[in-house]
């Protein structure tokens, strides 16, 4: 049986992967099995199909249904030459430069086959965790230096220990899969391409902290990931993987702020997704007032790999206080967009120019927004910034969840600053005044600047307002919206000098 691999990741579906799979099914003939996988993360090459050969898998892309007859005639099924032939995906420069730990299996395995998962090293982390016992696992996770991949970067081992040490009749694990930051899609790709890694991480976490119930809170904008996870949970439950800690999938309802952990807990409890004041921390009083671990998808999905490789091997990667790897997401106007997992410590410019190949439009890169809609805009002058949590913060930037959105020289940065305020106004939960009112006022002030009305005075007012938001908001929505706004003002002042 010859096996052909066609991704069913939503980024491949969005550019016609289903039509390609259908054409292959109709034309490839008997004896060819089509396996639907996740994505390798070379999004510009999607739909990227692969054929299994004695030399390994050989990839072709981007493939359209119209290419299928020509590909088959050229000898696709034996990996023969063709203008769309990429060769072995792992030899492609974009892949060869990566260190794939969290995404080791993504794009390779059938996401819904637990056998395939096992064959590629899946469940080895859980086996090790069971042998180690909870205390050793916490010590390993702590020693690995793993920090929350959702953006806040809190040390995972410390969070787990806090919940493990808390005395309670019932504890919860909540996976934050509300990946609302624009320009980010790593959680989505992992859930669609390797969902069992997330489930395994949650089961290990449950074992360690003594929780018997877990929730995955996923955003409604991810219909394909929801479908995959629902199916994966059925498979995992049927095979006894969830016997000690059952996991339930919950779908959000279009609120960005529910990605903030306390708003997420409120939402799970069936309330308006409004932020809670901290303390108490969710680790002490979380879901339904019980001790709760709230972790991002990537954080949980990386734990099994850490246990397999050992904390020391993981901590050996990275730089400063940012240990291990981060799956960066190259997005927007970039030539080679997709997912690039690498140890912390690369320079921003290296990632944009050498890995990403500059802009897709071929025009000069003017601005780069890292860390989602609340992250700063960086000009080329700051491309020597090292990608780790502290180095970005030192330059008033945000690494966040690792999203990097590239803009060419046609971008109007005053308009981007206005959008940041508009977005904040739209998504503010309304609980604290600086965010609820300040974002609307911010929009109005920028509108005046855009009209050239008392520009200097209004820029001073905008800065004052941003300081109020930064210091007075309850959570990161109002607290961080000054990053995109003030970075645009600081690094691109000419865009605000309107007549």
């Amino acid at each position, binding site marked *: 049986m010859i096996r052909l691999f066609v991704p069913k990741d*939503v*980024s491949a*579906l*969005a*550019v016609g992967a289903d039509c390609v799979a259908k054409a292959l099914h109709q034309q490839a003939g008997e004896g060819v099995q089509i396996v639907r996988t996740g994505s390798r993360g070379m*999004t*510009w090459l*999607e739909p990227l199909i692969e054929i299994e050969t004695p030399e390994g898998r050989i990839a072709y892309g981007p493939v359209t249904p119209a290419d299928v007859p020509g590909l088959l005639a050229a000898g696709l099924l034996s990996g023969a030459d063709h203008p769309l032939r990429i060769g072995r995906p792992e030899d492609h420069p974009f892949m060869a430069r990566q260190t794939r730990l969290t995404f080791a299996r993504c794009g390779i395995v059938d996401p819904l086959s637990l056998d395939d998962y096992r064959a590629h090293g899946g469940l080895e982390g859980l086996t090790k965790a069971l042998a180690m016992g909870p205390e050793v696992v916490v010590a390993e996770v702590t020693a690995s230096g793993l920090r929350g991949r959702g953006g806040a970067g809190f040390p995972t081992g410390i969070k787990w220990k806090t919940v493990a040490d808390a005395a309670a009749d019932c504890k919860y694990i909540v996976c934050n899969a509300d*990946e*609302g*930051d*624009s*320009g*980010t*899609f790593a*959680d*989505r*790709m992992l859930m669609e391409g390797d969902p069992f890694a997330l489930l395994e991480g949650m089961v290990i976490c449950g074992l360690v902290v003594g929780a018997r119930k877990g929730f995955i809170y996923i955003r*409604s*904008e*991810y*219909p*394909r*990931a929801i*479908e995959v996870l629902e199916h994966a949970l059925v498979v995992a439950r049927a095979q006894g993987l969830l016997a000690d800690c059952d996991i*339930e999938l*919950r*779908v*959000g*309802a*279009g*609120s*960005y702020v529910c990605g903030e952990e306390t708003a997420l807990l409120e*939402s799970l*409890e*069936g*309330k*308006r*997704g*409004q932020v809670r004041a901290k303390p108490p921390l969710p680790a002490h009083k979380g879901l*339904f007032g019980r001790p709760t671990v709230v972790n991002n998808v990537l954080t949980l999905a990386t734990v099994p790999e850490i246990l397999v490789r050992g904390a020391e091997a993981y901590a050996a990667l990275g730089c400063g206080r940012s240990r291990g790897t981060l799956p960066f*997401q*190259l*997005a*927007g*106007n970039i030539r080679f*967009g*997709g997912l690039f997992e690498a140890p912390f410590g690369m320079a921003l410019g290296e990632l944009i120019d050498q890995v990403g190949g500059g802009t897709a*439009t071929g025009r000069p890169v003017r601005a780069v*927004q890292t860390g989602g*809609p609340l992250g700063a805009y960086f000009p080329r002058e700051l491309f020597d910034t090292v990608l780790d949590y502290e180095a970005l913060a030192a330059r008033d930037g945000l690494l966040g969840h690792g*999203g990097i*959105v590239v*803009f*060419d020289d046609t971008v109007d940065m005053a308009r*981007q600053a206005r*959008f940041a305020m508009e*977005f904040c106004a739209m*998504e503010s*939960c309304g609980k604290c005044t600086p965010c609820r009112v300040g974002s609307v006022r911010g929009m109005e002030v920028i509108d005046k600047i855009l009209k050239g009305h008392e520009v200097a005075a209004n820029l001073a007012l905008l800065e004052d307002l941003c300081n109020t938001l930064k210091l007075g908001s309850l959570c990161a929505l109002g607290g961080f919206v000054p990053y995109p706004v003030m970075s645009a003002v600081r690094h691109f002042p000419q865009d605000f000098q309107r007549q």
Partner: protein
Amino acid sequence: MASKTTNLVADWDPNRAAEIINAHLGLEGPALPILHGLQAAFGCVPSEAISMVAKALNRSRAEIHGVVTFYHDFRDAPAGKTVVKLCRAEACQAVGGREAASFLLASLRIGWGQTTPDGAVTVEAVYCLGLCAAAPAALVNGQPHGRLDGMSLIEAVAEDTQP
């Protein structure tokens, strides 16, 4: 994933609503699953349902109304036959998302969040579909579309609205 011919919604039926509510009462924190269930059945969360949910959950009507109106997903009236969820976030902006959106809205002669007078198409803003490396992107009745421009976006919508 939503199949191509979704949005076939039922008329208001209190018995059906009660069934949906009761089916979720065993869950921890059942409010959102109930509201999603109601919307899947009726195309919106009908105002008649709010007092039923409140009663079943032992919460006030005002509180449930507050929950329903907090979340962008929940509607108070059914949407058009084809729902276009079009991304307005930064990665899509960087590659012509604003222009593609303006082109579609102008051709349909509606604004964000509105439905064409014949009830055929609703265009809603979303902020990121996770298709940021294949931008601009949209979901047309649940089907993903990437690398869009004004023309291909209109084609995707037209394909879905054809009988």
